[in-house]
């Protein structure tokens, strides 16, 4: 009787050991690398080419969110005048976020918009014929918002600024060409 109990006890202990060791093992850290974009409401995604061309290009999106562009990239910065699309698209290819606003946007709104901008890898410029008062564009992604107070603006920056999903992540956004009306 005692020997049988010992055997059963040992078996239970052995099985418990295996089960408990499995249960107590913490989960391996799981993650998915950035820029999935699924969670920001209203973000549109596109597929565009990347070729270098000279001359003007007709773009599929307004403002352009990718496509063929000039070999020279636009230097990131704050512009008070519209910048040429063919240079702006090249800045997107390097990971910049291009923030465009309707020229009729109030100075108060423009100032509120500037507060959101990081110190680098961002282009701010007016753009005539925008589909919304403010449009945020990164390579192949775009978000239209009506106001600088829209809480999706910081979310868009967090998700897409210097994304690894651009064709040339890490390429500089300086050393290219300045557009007219560069403020800083």
């Amino acid at each position, binding site marked *: 009787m005692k020997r049988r109990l010992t055997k059963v*006890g040992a078996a239970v*202990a052995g099985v418990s050991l295996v089960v*408990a060791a*499995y249960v107590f093992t913490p989960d391996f*850290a799981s993650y998915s*690398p950035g820029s999935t974009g699924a969670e920001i409401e209203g973000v549109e995604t596109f597929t565009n080419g990347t070729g270098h061309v000279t001359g003007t290009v007709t773009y599929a999106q307004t403002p352009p969110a990718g496509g063929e562009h000039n070999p020279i990239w636009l230097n990131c910065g704050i512009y008070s005048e519209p910048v040429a699309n063919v240079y702006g698209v090249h800045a997107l290819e390097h990971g910049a976020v291009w923030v465009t606003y309707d020229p009729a946007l109030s100075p108060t709104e423009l100032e509120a918009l500037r507060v959101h901008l990081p110190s680098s890898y961002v282009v701010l410029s007016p753009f005539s014929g925008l589909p919304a008062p403010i449009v945020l564009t990164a390579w192949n992604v775009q978000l239209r918002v009506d106001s600088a107070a829209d809480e999706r603006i910081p979310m868009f*920056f967090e998700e897409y600024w210097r994304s690894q999903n651009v064709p040339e992540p890490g390429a*500089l956004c*300086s050393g290219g060409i300045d557009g007219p009306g560069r403020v800083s």
Partner: protein
Amino acid sequence: MAQAESPSNEAGRGGIVVTALVTAIVVGAVAYSLGRMSAPGNPLPDSTSAEAGFARDMQVHHIQGVEMAMVIRDGTEDEGVRLLAYDIATTQGHQAGQLYGWLTEWGLRQAGSQPPMTWMMPSDPAGEDGDHAAHAMGALMPGMATSAQMAELSAESGVEAERLFLSLMIAHHQGALEMADAVLDRSTHPGVGTFADAVLLSQASEIDLMTRMLAERVE
């Protein structure tokens, strides 16, 4: 049922209970240890960690370093300065890519939800001296050139440009030392520590070199 047991049987059952309890405790402890030991050692830094803040802010810092080096390489014909610029641009470009890769591997975005330099804020601002006042949230990182200084560097040429570059880059490197020190104070991550040590070592010796080069170019 218990009333039917004889005293000797009761003593035997007590022994079994004690044995079972001890066995359960031992099994539990061993299993817990096994489980912990087989788990990955270092958890990944999260988005508001000092490691992530350093990886983000040091990239911004280094990328401006690359830009400054490229500007002076185009702006002077002095071989010594051009070689130094080549060295700085390639080193800092490589390191910026390393930092970018860390964030990707850690499953983090390049942009944080907090303003730049938040990770360098003292945990107890009142207890710190004025030295840290410059690290207000969202402020320019230590040693960063302003956009006016960058424009001036691009506009100058020859020895004037060299002087400006050297003084800006000395300040820039000193800022990097400050950031590397700050992350070493706040992190035990081995990869981050190795990186920060390399920055401290190489940039301190470059500051010496640039100080000598600047002295050779006094007006």
